[in-house]
């Protein structure tokens, strides 16, 4: 599995995708930092992360859209799937590589935390909860993005499907409050308040695992219908 992680991670930086993702995120994040901190005078780190989550909604699909779609289109999936490596490891390898990119991005945001420390005293525990929530949200988006990518050989379709899905579940509670627990962003919003909710954490992880399992089902099923 390590080999898949290594290769996938490297691929993010051999193509512009890795740079685009990190760059785009930091650009937007800096924008919100400027508006929230420098213009409006908030000195808490977590506040910017409310906006940070909305950025993720749109840019995680950039990271995941090519994972399986591109392999299918170029035929390299034949190399991957005829190697003596299990499907589970292939899927997990791709998932972990994408997660690593998000973690690197998060590490960059610590710079902003440093800046805030210089001017005030932001709460470390809340910041930690925020970063954890942010990561949980990210892995959920990644897992769904990979599932979407396994469904098609067109990257754009996969990307559009993921963005569409992310926006849909984001706004579901507006249709009817009954759906409030379906909104990943709703669940996430408790983390920047400094609360690490076990139930919510489990929901994120369960969602992620479900998407990964579904991806495996899709890939396995394709073996017999392809």
């Amino acid at each position, binding site marked *: 599995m390590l080999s898949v992680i290594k*290769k996938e991670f490297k691929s993010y930086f051999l193509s512009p995708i890795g740079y685009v993702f990190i760059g785009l995120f930091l650009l937007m994040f800096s924008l919100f930092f400027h508006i929230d901190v420098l213009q409006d005078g908030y000195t808490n780190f977590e506040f910017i992360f409310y906006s940070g989550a909305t950025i993720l909604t749109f840019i995680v699909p950039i990271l995941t859209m090519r994972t399986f779609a591109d392999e299918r289109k170029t*035929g390299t999936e034949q*190399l991957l799937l*005829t190697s003596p490596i299990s499907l589970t490891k292939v899927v997990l390898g791709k998932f972990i590589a994408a997660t690593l990119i998000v973690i690197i991005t998060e590490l960059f945001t610590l710079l902003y935390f440093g800046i805030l420390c210089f001017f005030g005293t932001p709460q470390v525990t809340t910041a930690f909860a925020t970063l954890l929530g942010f990561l949980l949200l990210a892995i959920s988006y990644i897992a769904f993005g990979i599932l979407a990518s396994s469904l098609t050989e067109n990257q754009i379709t996969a990307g559009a499907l993921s963005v569409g899905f992310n926006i849909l579940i984001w706004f579901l509670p507006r249709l009817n409050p009954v759906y409030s627990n379906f909104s990943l962003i709703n669940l996430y919003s408790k983390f920047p308040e400094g609360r690490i909710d076990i139930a919510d954490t489990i929901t994120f992880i369960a969602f992620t695992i479900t998407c990964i399992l579904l991806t495996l089902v899709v890939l396995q099923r394709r073996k017999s*219908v392809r």
Partner: protein
Amino acid sequence: MIEVKNVTKKYGSFTAVDNISFEIKDGEIIGLLGPNGAGKSTTMNMLTGFIEQTEGDIIIDGYNMLKKPKKAKREIGYMPEGVPLYSDLTVKEFVTYMAELKKVDRKVRKEKVQKVIEETGLKDVQRKLIKNLSRGYKQRTSMAGALVGEPKILILDEPTVGLDPKQITEIRSLIKELGKTHTVILSSHILSEVSQICSKVIIINKGKIVAIDTPEKLEASVATNNNIYLTIEDPDNKIDGMKEKIKGIKEIKLVEENEDGTKRYCIESEDNTDLRKTIFAEFAKENITIYEMKKESVTLEDAFMKLIEGGKK
């Protein structure tokens, strides 16, 4: 050793491969032949475990592909049709990745990768990005990816498509060389290639096996009339009398008159006789000059066409 037992592949109501069975022994070079859409690639994809058969068993070196896929896949090096490659990687990175996927031991990995790169003649381009390589080198890179990890069986889907004649000769001799140490299965459109390289041929049509045999036997199986083609200079038209003079000639037919005054004839002779020596001697006596004499030979192409046509009826 590869055993294919009653394998069927269906897509909905369409049967791509219909109940095929064959066995391939160690060290054989097998050619898989068939018109487009006959089920060659489907068969290869099943052998490599890329797709699953609807029915039947595929056993690679004692391991059932469906039940022990990891062990079975470990024995196979696969070069898929159209040579898919990770174009962002360099040749060396690609071969190393393949080695990692095939679980080549870490300690010897570097060494094995280097060995394969040298064997396939990629040493000079190993640091180049795959997307910048010519078609011939891409083919070699794909081959290197298949070879690394020392599989016993090599499965090559159309290995020479899209290459120039020089590259084709190079790849062919590489395959021949590999055939000494590996079991090789290759599919091809080029029949002369198959008859040159392969020790055995499997002909597939419409998902069914039409014939399994050596190229020579297949050619012999469709031997047509025992014909000899002659180009002669015969100013006195003495050829008309030759039918009576030489025993065994069934018929002499004029094929064409050439501009230089020579004529081309087809002599149909009785089965199981080779009249060339007699013709040479008798024609000389009659002052007929022979410019060219050739016994009609049957190629694998003829055998192929006949078998495929036969299937249609």
